[in-house]
């Protein structure tokens, strides 16, 4: 009987110690909400549309004011498809100790210890049915953005498949120096919404290098290939600042 009380008390205190937090994402092009079928323009004047975005989010942690962090388990696959919602889409649910935080960090990607297991035996959101398994380059695509380029010779499909352990993308949305980032999590929980500017990928890198879809070889941007790794690195660098906390 006493044991039952103990279990009851423990479960009550566990409940009080964690608040449900929902992570949502808004897709943006620059500062505007992404719209399927709308034609956008890169800084270099190339016209394009977005058709698909899927990415993994993992190794999420909330950062306390003193710099320690609360690490949260879980791996999610965020999916945005043509004609589906692009604003306020839930990508993850977490249980978090209530309190004051100065931001969060996470990785876009699959943790290394999961990335190299036999995909045949893994379950969703991993496994081959995820559509993110890379058959010729075992492991998963971490960030998969696809669309069409409107070129003078006609519409051409392009893909950006960012993956391999070298391109696991760290996103840091915390600030301990100023009071600019404040995330208060009450015991009842809350929603944290992120903006993701998908057009960041197309900003020019060092020496003005950019993803030029007029070149056929750059319409397929993949992992580590030496042919495209410079531009993959540009995209990778740009994407580190593509996420922001929505106000």
């Amino acid at each position, binding site marked *: 009987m006493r044991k039952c009380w103990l279990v009851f008390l423990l479960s009550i205190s566990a409940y009080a110690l964690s608040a449900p937090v929902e992570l949502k994402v808004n897709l943006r092009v620059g500062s505007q909400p992404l719209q399927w079928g709308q034609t956008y323009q890169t800084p270099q004047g190339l016209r394009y549309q977005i058709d698909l975005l899927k990415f993994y989010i993992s190794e999420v942690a909330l950062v306390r004011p003193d710099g320690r962090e609360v690490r949260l388990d879980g791996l999610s696959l965020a999916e945005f498809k043509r004609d589906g919602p692009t604003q306020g889409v839930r990508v993850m649910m977490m249980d978090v100790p209530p309190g004051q935080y100065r931001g969060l960090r996470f990785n876009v990607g699959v943790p290394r210890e999961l990335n190299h297991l*036999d*995909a*045949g*035996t893994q379950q969703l959101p991993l*496994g*081959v*049915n*995820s*559509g993110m*398994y890379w*058959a*010729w*380059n*075992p492991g998963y695509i971490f960030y998969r953005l696809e669309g069409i380029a409107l070129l003078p010779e006609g519409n051409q*499909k392009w*893909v950006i498949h960012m993956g391999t352990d*070298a391109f696991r993308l760290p996103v840091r949305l915390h600030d301990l120096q100023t009071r600019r980032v404040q995330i208060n999590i009450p015991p009842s929980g809350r929603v944290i919404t992120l903006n993701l500017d998908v057009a960041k990928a197309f900003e020019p890198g060092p020496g003005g290098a950019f993803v030029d879809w007029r070149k056929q070889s750059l319409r397929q941007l*993949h*992992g*580590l*290939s*030496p*042919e495209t*790794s410079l531009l993959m690195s540009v995209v990778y660098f740009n994407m580190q600042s593509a996420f922001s906390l929505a106000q």
Partner: protein
Amino acid sequence: MRRRQFIALGLLLGVGLLGFFLWPRPTQSTSTADLPIPPQASPRVLFAERTVPIPEDNPQTPAKVELGRRLFYDTRLSKDGTVACASCHKPEFAFSDGGKPVSTGIFGRKGLRNAPTLTNVAFRRHLFWEGRSPRLELQAVGPLTAHDEMGLEPEELAQKLGAIPEYARAFQEVFGEAPSLKTVTYAIAAFERTLVSYNSPFDRYQAGDDSAMSQAALRGMELFFGEKGDCFHCHVGPDFTDDEPRNTALYTVYKDIGLARATGKDEDVGKFKTPTLRNVALTAPYMHDGSIQTLREAVQHYNRGGEPNLNADALIRPLGLTDPEVEDLVAFLESLTDRSFTTNPALLPPRGKGSTP
């Protein structure tokens, strides 16, 4: 006091040495009477018998193999309904693409690489030309989803097959679940594990049939397995492949960089997996890009030692083979052809449809 210690130590050492020499040890048997007599019928068997390795999570069943066969020959597994696995892996060409350097996928899109034979593919430890895929189930994801091959997203494939009652029923029977990319690849892999070929003139010669191979082919075999032709270091084992990526000095500058595409390393540029040579006479053209038309030209490439390339395999060098020797090697390669494999009804399309979709 000290002297006594020395004496004791000396005694101990002496006993130890004596023990070492006198200790009974197994003697080498000089009689051969109890050794098994080598089978007289096949004095030339190079390879032990092998069984097809089956992964634990995908046991073979007749129903699964049959389902895999139907899927293998079904063009509905592609986005525009024109491409099946068998479109580029045609049985009459030992499951390769019949003379085409590269294959044509959905909407007429051309691939970049030569479709390899599926002869004895169950035994390959590495798949794809880079050799980066560990097993057939996972390899099949590539062509099914690649935008220039069959081009289906996992959801589209599941929906398409789920709407075909025969398939919905068959998947339920075999896997206890609805069709999905995963179950499709598992069924296809089960069928691919039945694509075994062991009945070439070379195999019959190995089994003791002296008349199975021509004199030219026999001379070619000596060259193949000798240091002069030096083919056997890479084309090794029962399927004539080591399954390893190597640069064969085909070009100085490779348009398709091979393994480096996946690893990003300069030393991997131009490395492609050693292909099997079984049924090689049926699988022209050759090399990863199908740039060499005939077996003779392929042998001549190695005879010349290829083009200058820093990544070239250490074994690539001019071989100094004479023209007749090149012909003999070609004759040997032709003796690896197994027509009972390409005409085996169990491997052809079900219900006797045309052999290619």
